[in-house]
């Protein structure tokens, strides 16, 4: 493996949340002891349902919010204190792309001016050079200067996401955090943006943290995938292998829930129970109330993410080196 660009060591983050208008506030553990390493030029996919903490993890990695515990290292240096010159230099090398491009853009400015903005802020080059750079960025995301003169409202969803991408690339970052970047787009447009992202990554040797609930898109773009459930990573492994042979019962259910042409729903693992609620996190393994193979130990003891052979790591009492959690597997076959 090559040199890591981003190293996340056991970060945790909790919020105080009030349940209802008159309720008392409870601590919600959004992220709980997450460790990740992203090698230079590679993509780590972060998968999970709402409430899994995947977006919070992305924000902490970018330094948009501080972790309560743990630390993030970028290019072998700890994250600088916010507001310092070192922090600004670091931040210029990392950018973020969100799900909703319209919300990320200013409706009252032509998009070219918005791509230019980070260059102005960081004082990159002469005004003429900045203009040239904006044209270059528009070309890079397969748009024309004519698109640059338009306002966000006059562009389609896919074009807007390209503009957001161009703006993120303006400062020549090394690292991009993409939070559900294609979820709001139609399938055919989604494919355009995914291809573009893959091309740009190869050209610019970008490192990506790709956050999505869509297993297909994540597999398409990631080399390594981490599956999160209620703030913790439950399984981690190389993308192809993880989706082909999921070992954690939750990953098995997720993969099985992803509808596929040609597969009938007969062999599907359907999890019972409500979606996970970060404010009422079950004791022991957070997944145990919905787990088809849970045993008594799962309710009391939190499993630790540990290597189970190859490059796979799983946090499940039932998964040991040689075999995946089995009850789900037999049900799948039945």
């Amino acid at each position: 493996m090559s040199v890591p660009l981003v190293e996340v060591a056991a970060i945790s983050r909790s919020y105080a949340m009030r349940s209802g208008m008159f309720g008392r506030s409870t601590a919600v553990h959004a992220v709980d002891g997450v460790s990740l390493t992203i090698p230079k030029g590679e993509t780590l996919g972060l998968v999970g349902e709402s409430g899994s903490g995947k977006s919070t993890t992305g924000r902490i990695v970018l330094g948009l919010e501080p972790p309560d515990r743990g630390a993030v290292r970028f290019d072998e240096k700890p994250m600088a204190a916010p507001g310092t010159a070192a922090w600004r230099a670091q931040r210029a090398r990392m950018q973020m792309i969100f799900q909703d491009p319209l919300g990320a853009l200013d409706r009252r400015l032509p998009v070219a001016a918005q791509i230019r903005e980070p260059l102005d802020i960081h004082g990159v080059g002469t005004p003429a050079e900045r203009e040239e750079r904006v044209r270059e960025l528009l070309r890079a995301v397969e748009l024309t200067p004519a698109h640059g003169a338009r306002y966000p409202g006059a562009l389609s969803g896919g074009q807007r996401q390209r503009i957001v991408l161009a703006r993120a690339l303006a400062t020549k970052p090394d690292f991009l955090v993409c939070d559900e970047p294609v979820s709001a787009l139609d399938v055919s447009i989604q494919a355009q943006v995914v291809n573009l992202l893959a091309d740009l990554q190869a050209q610019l040797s970008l490192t990506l943290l790709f956050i999505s609930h869509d297993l297909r898109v994540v597999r398409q773009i990631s080399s390594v995938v981490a599956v999160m459930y209620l703030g913790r990573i439950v399984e981690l492994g190389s993308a192809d292998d993880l989706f082909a042979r999921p070992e954690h019962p939750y990953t098995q259910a997720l993969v099985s829930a992803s509808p596929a042409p040609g597969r009938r729903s007969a062999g599907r693992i359907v999890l019972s129970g409500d979606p996970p609620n970060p404010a009422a996190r079950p004791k022991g393994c957070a997944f145990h109330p919905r787990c088809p193979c849970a045993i008594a130990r799962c309710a009391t003891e939190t499993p630790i993410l540990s290597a189970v052979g190859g490059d796979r790591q799983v946090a499940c009492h039932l998964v040991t080196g040689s075999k995946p959690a089995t009850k789900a597997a037999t049900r799948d076959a039945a």
Partner: protein
Amino acid sequence: MGRYFAIRIGRAALTIVLVVTFAFVVLRLSGDPSLMILGPEAPPEVLAAFRKAWGLDDPIWFQYLDYFGAIAKGELGRSMRDGRPAIELVLERIPATLALTLPAFAFKVALGIPAGIYAALHRGSAIDRAVMMAAVAGFTVPSFVLALLLVLVFAVQLGWLPSGGQDSWRHAILPIATLSLGGAAVLARFTRSAMLEVLGQPYIRTASAKGVPWRKVVTSHALPNAAIPTVTILGFMVGTLIAGAVVVESVFSWPGVGRLLVVAVANRDLAVVQCILLLVALTMVTSNLIVDFLYGFLDPRLRMKGAHA
């Protein structure tokens, strides 16, 4: 639940203190009441005696504490003009004001809400456009202009109604019309936009898709939701019942609280002005509290007590 209302009531009390303080400071800084009441030619010794009698030569913070101390004892001061208790002066004017504002409020509701609902249900129709135009006029035409216009047409030109005074119910028609037309327009506009917002919601389409007849979709699905924002503006209107008629009472020489306020301000009759302002603040704050209660009643989402997982 108790904490929620404790906070609201505390906030209401603070609002009242702030209003009274503001009125106190502004009135003391804007002119010497002794000159206003006794006239500029009054001999200095008379002025000095007057100031001493009313405590006007005490330091302002002392007057302020004194004033609040008195309020706490239920003592709202006396008029500097005739020495009668200020509260008495104000209370005897309230029926006259309510004789205008209560019917006006009823007309606003009876006219504005149905017009707004009708306009929303027939969006783009001639009636909708008429309601909207009336609403814009109601927003932009100041009430004294409307009052003068009505006087010009109905009292001067047509001679149907008297232009001022308080002798019979006919005298009340023009002031009530002035008060209610503008408010009805505002209310119509609010109701219309609240209703349009609700009619565009997915649950309205759900109700239609269930086969609920349109009339019932409107009455039992749309109206209860549209009522929530409309209550806000209604609450604001209730808040103006006591002193919302200052301009109209002046134009029509109607002897209500509003006229009293104008005269008292002109004379720097401190106790009377403060008493009226206190009353206004009280009605405003009370109507806001009522609105908060009504919200809880109308919107179950505000009633929830953390039962939601």
